């Protein structure tokens, strides 16, 4: 009973809000939406403690030997992801009641949010690749609708479209992955695939190909190197949307897909290596860009891309548990940071440039407190969540089979940069004097409560997956997810786990103090910019990646389409079709010239005809 309720609640919430009631005030719409989210969260909790009957099954379509069923799994991995999605989702629903209070028809926003939750849950709970694909595209659609929520501004609509198209490219790859999987395993069900992978051996090249295309799908959705350009632009949507979709849930779908198909990726070794390389390079690139961004949400967006890069690094190195653990902790503190920045923007009436803020410590005390906890967590300072999950990733990178140490060093650099830019953002917004012209005020209670809960989550989440070595707490997560993700691979790297942890902590502390030193005092905040001037411009313009895409892909494609639409189709193909009619007209106008109207010309033709006749009749006779 619980599973259908889990899905039905947000769907009904969306329909009630969007089509039936369409309540006038944001408050009423928000309340309905939040109730729907909370019921699905409750049903997840109930599902865990009192699991009901087996998976709920229903055939979608059967064609020849291909039968596709809708069925919902209830294994630990799904449960954990559902808990994270619905938990943080409901918090964000409550938060957005306050955030969207002044919007005039906010029911549309809440309907989309609920519909997004429904699609995300379909993605997570489905037991077949195709069911997941349905959720996959549904989530892409909702992010399109939500990013383009304020559609009056054409750029926001364009950002939404860009997000959808880039996701669609990833989905195309995903589709090909599904076809290859079906060709290999003759089934799309995860459990059956896992079983087949254990029992039979398949052509490794095909497995790698399938894994590669599935990874392209993950790349599109979780914003990795070639297809990450849509995430920073997706900040055009309202901040709670960025928190929910572009930090906590949707972007982690790629990681969930790879964890769900871990059997395949374990076997496809060179694709995993490729994933690790892509992961670490994305992390490094976006961390560098984040260091010099002006807009607070852009910084957080790039930090999300870099954290995702780290997760993919873990996946590449085979540490699926580390990735999922980081997904969970990251969901907490990134959602916290986004919502914190949301309340800052809400307070400064839409101002997003950190250089025009500052000194908000006094005016927004609780936002300041929660934001600080979030910053410390993401920076990786020991007691908080960020430290444990990031360290698990770094350690797994260290013990990876190939290039272990290089991945570890690069990972360390990424976490150093992360700590640096987060403290930069934190210092510029909250310390020093207020540089803006607005008069910020503390956000209402509905926005602060979720912040406090998330802050608490960021502190506690780390303890769930504490590594054994510390002998403080057993690794609950490892025990919980063992059946799905397989054993934690015990490797040995250059350093032992404790020493690696120590090095990571030291680097985080150095980065924080460096950041604090520079950005707490206004006069010193310019210096880092001056030291690495050439790099600053490069980072600020995001390595000109968008412009590069525009030049290399968008412009030639537009030119090609324009060529076809304006020249090739109307003139060449249509020309060929209209050719006979034009030829007929041309011939006609030629013959008209013969009709001079003067009688003698006709007589001339007459005599000429006579002559020809005689010639024909008297062929033999030569004149």
């Amino acid at each position: 009973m619980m599973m259908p309720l889990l899905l039905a609640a947000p769907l009904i919430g969306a329909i009630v809000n969007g089509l039936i009631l369409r309540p006038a005030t944001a408050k009423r719409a928000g309340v309905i939406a939040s109730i729907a989210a909370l019921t699905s969260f409750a049903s997840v909790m109930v599902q865990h403690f009192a699991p009901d009957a087996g998976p709920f099954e229903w055939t979608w379509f059967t064609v020849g030997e291909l039968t596709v069923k809708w069925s919902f799994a209830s294994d630990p991995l799904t449960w954990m992801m559902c808990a994270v999605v619905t938990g943080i989702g409901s918090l964000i629903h409550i938060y957005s009641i306050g955030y969207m209070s002044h919007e005039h028809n906010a029911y549309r926003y809440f309907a989309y949010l609920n519909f997004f939750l429904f699609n995300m849950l379909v993605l997570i709970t489905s037991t077949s690749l195709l069911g997941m694909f349905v959720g996959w595209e549904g989530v892409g659609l909702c992010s399109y609708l939500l990013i383009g929520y304020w559609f009056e501004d054409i750029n926001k609509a364009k950002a939404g479209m860009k997000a959808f198209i880039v996701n669609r490219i990833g989905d195309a790859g995903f589709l090909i992955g599904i076809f290859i999987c079906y060709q290999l395993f003759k089934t799309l069900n995860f459990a059956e695939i896992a079983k087949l992978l254990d029992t039979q051996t398949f052509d490794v090249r095909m497995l790698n190909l399938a894994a590669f295309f599935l990874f392209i799908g993950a790349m599109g959705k979780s914003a990795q190197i070639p297809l990450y350009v849509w995430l920073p632009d997706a900040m055009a949507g309202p901040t709670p949307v960025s928190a929910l979709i572009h930090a906590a849930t949707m972007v982690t779908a790629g990681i969930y897909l790879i964890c769900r198909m871990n059997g395949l990726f374990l076997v496809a070794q060179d694709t995993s290596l490729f994933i690790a390389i892509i992961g670490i390079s994305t992390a490094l690139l976006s961390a560098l860009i984040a260091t010099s961004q002006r807009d607070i949400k852009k910084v957080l967006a790039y930090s999300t891309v870099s954290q995702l890069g780290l997760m993919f690094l873990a996946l590449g190195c085979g540490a699926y548990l580390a990735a999922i653990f980081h997904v969970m902790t990251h969901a907490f503190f990134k959602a916290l940071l986004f919502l914190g920045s949301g309340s800052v923007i809400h307070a400064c009436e839409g101002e997003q440039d950190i250089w025009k803020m500052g000194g908000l410590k006094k005016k927004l005390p609780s936002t300041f407190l929660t934001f600080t906890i979030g910053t410390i967590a993401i920076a990786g300072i020991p007691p908080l969540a960020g430290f444990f999950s990031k360290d698990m990733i770094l350690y797994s990178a260290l013990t990876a089979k190939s290039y272990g140490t290089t991945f570890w060093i690069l990972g360390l650099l990424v976490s150093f940069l992360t700590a640096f830019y987060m403290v930069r953002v934190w210092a510029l917004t909250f310390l020093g004097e207020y540089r803006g012209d607005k008069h910020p005020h503390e956000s209402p209670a509905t926005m602060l409560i979720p912040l406090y809960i998330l802050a608490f989550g960021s502190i506690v989440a780390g303890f769930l997956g504490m590594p054994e070595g510390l002998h403080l707490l057993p690794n609950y997560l490892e025990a919980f997810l063992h059946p799905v993700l397989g054993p934690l691979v015990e490797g040995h790297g250059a350093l032992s786990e404790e020493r690696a942890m120590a090095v990571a902590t030291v680097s985080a502390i150095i980065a924080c103090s460096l950041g604090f030193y520079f950005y707490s005092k206004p006069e010193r905040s310019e210096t880092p910019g001056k030291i690495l001037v050439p790099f600053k411009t490069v980072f600020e313009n995001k390595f000109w990646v968008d412009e590069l895409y525009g030049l290399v892909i968008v412009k030639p494609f537009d030119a090609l389409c324009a060529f076809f639409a304006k020249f090739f189709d109307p003139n060449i193909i249509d020309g060929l079709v209209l050719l006979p009619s034009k030829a007929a007209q041309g011939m006609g106008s030629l013959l008209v010239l013969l009709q001079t109207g003067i009688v003698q010309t006709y007589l001339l033709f007459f005599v000429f005809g006579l002559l020809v006749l005689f010639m024909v009749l008297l062929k033999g006779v030569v004149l």
Partner: protein
Amino acid sequence: MGMEHLLLWLVTLPLIGALVCFALTDELSKYFALVVTLLGWVLAFFVYQGFDSAHATQLQMVFNYPWLNSMGVSFGLGIDGISFPLVILTKLMMPIAILASFNEKKFMRFFMSCYLVLDSAMTGTFLATDMVLFYVFWELMLIPMILLIGVWGSEQRVFASVKFFIYTFAGSMLMLASIFYLFSQTHVQLGQYTGEIAAFTKLNFSPVEVFWGLNAEKLVFLGFFIAFAIKVPLFPLHTWLPDAHVQAPTGGSILLAAVLLKMGTYGLLRFAIPIAPNAFVEFSTCVAYLAIIGILYGAWVAYQQKDMKKLVAYSSVSHLGFCVLGICSMNTKGLTGSMLQMVNHGITTGALFLLVGMLYERRHTKKFEDYGGLAAIVPYFSILFVFVACSSMGVPGLNGFVGEFLVFMGAFEANQTWAFVTVTGVVFGALYTLTMVKKTLFGPVTNAENRSLKDVTLKEWAAILPLCILIVYLGLAPNSFLSKFNQSLDTYWAETLKKTALDAGTVK
């Protein structure tokens, strides 16, 4: 009313309605036509119930009336797995097309009788089991369509209708040539003239090369294929579609997109492939290439269009490319996918044209620059618009996806590179659909008239709602509909390709 007369009523009821329509006044003829087509729904429901899905391969509810005895031609109607979904689609779309053209100003009586004649001609084409009868209905179908575009169209309607007529008619001339050849062969090979399609499929051809290395079978196939390729429209022969759509009235566009385009693919399945299987097997690769080019080309050209209806017309070229690709992949998944895609495309593009028609009735312009930011002004319309756009893009959960997915599976099985290339078609499909949505709904409200647009009226809701329900129904639970004609598609390839070079192993 016995089962066998059901099909006869299916064809003749609208014809009688058309005649009666002449006598009524303009006002009355509208509602009368609606009633007749709703009766069509009832009949279609009976057919849906009466159709025995167990043996969908044989012709059911066969109605036979000797017509030209000397030539062995009979007025034969029958329905089987291949024509079943398309007949249902035709009967479904008729009342919607009529509802969409309620506020036409001039000659309403003749407008409605044109629709009804078109309805009976289309149903007849799908149900005909006799080659000559099929050809008669095939040509009869053109005439009302020409009148619809030519008389009630917009600015350059005459040019468009003449182009449409000549283009399609030229194609059907080639088909006629093949029919004559086959007809003469029936006398030679089977003793006496007969129009039965079943008899035609049993003919075998002399392998002698006629010219350019084409033997008799290839020529017959080409005759049929070109006529159907024009109708589909396949890539190089598609230029009549945008003109016809842009100038056609809303109802005309709906029927043109929803049903007339399916004649081509239906013809391929019913005539071209069973009659000349070897030729099809040989040509299937280049037909597939044409289809793939059609998919990508249609999407690219649609992306740059300034006129809404032209964009949707080119999108139809792209969607129909999927159907043909499904057929060319020569396996059950591809074929079922293409059959589903035909029905889905009919519903989705019908709804899309309905919406574009609504805008045209309010603003009398189809250009994008006249619209912008409608989402704030007409919320219900924009919800419908985005909903149908999603279905046209093939977002899973709606009907577009199931058909496309199966075509991809079939194409992947037949030839992997085909699937790799066409999957990018999905991205381009999303691109032009979203550009259309962006240009009409989003952005600031550019010109003033848009502010006073009124939202969807009751009549329009009545027209669009059944389509939306079907979009969701076919998207989530296509199985009940699929199981009806599934069996015939499974055995289709087994039967038709049995006679071909199966032993030569050309079929994978």
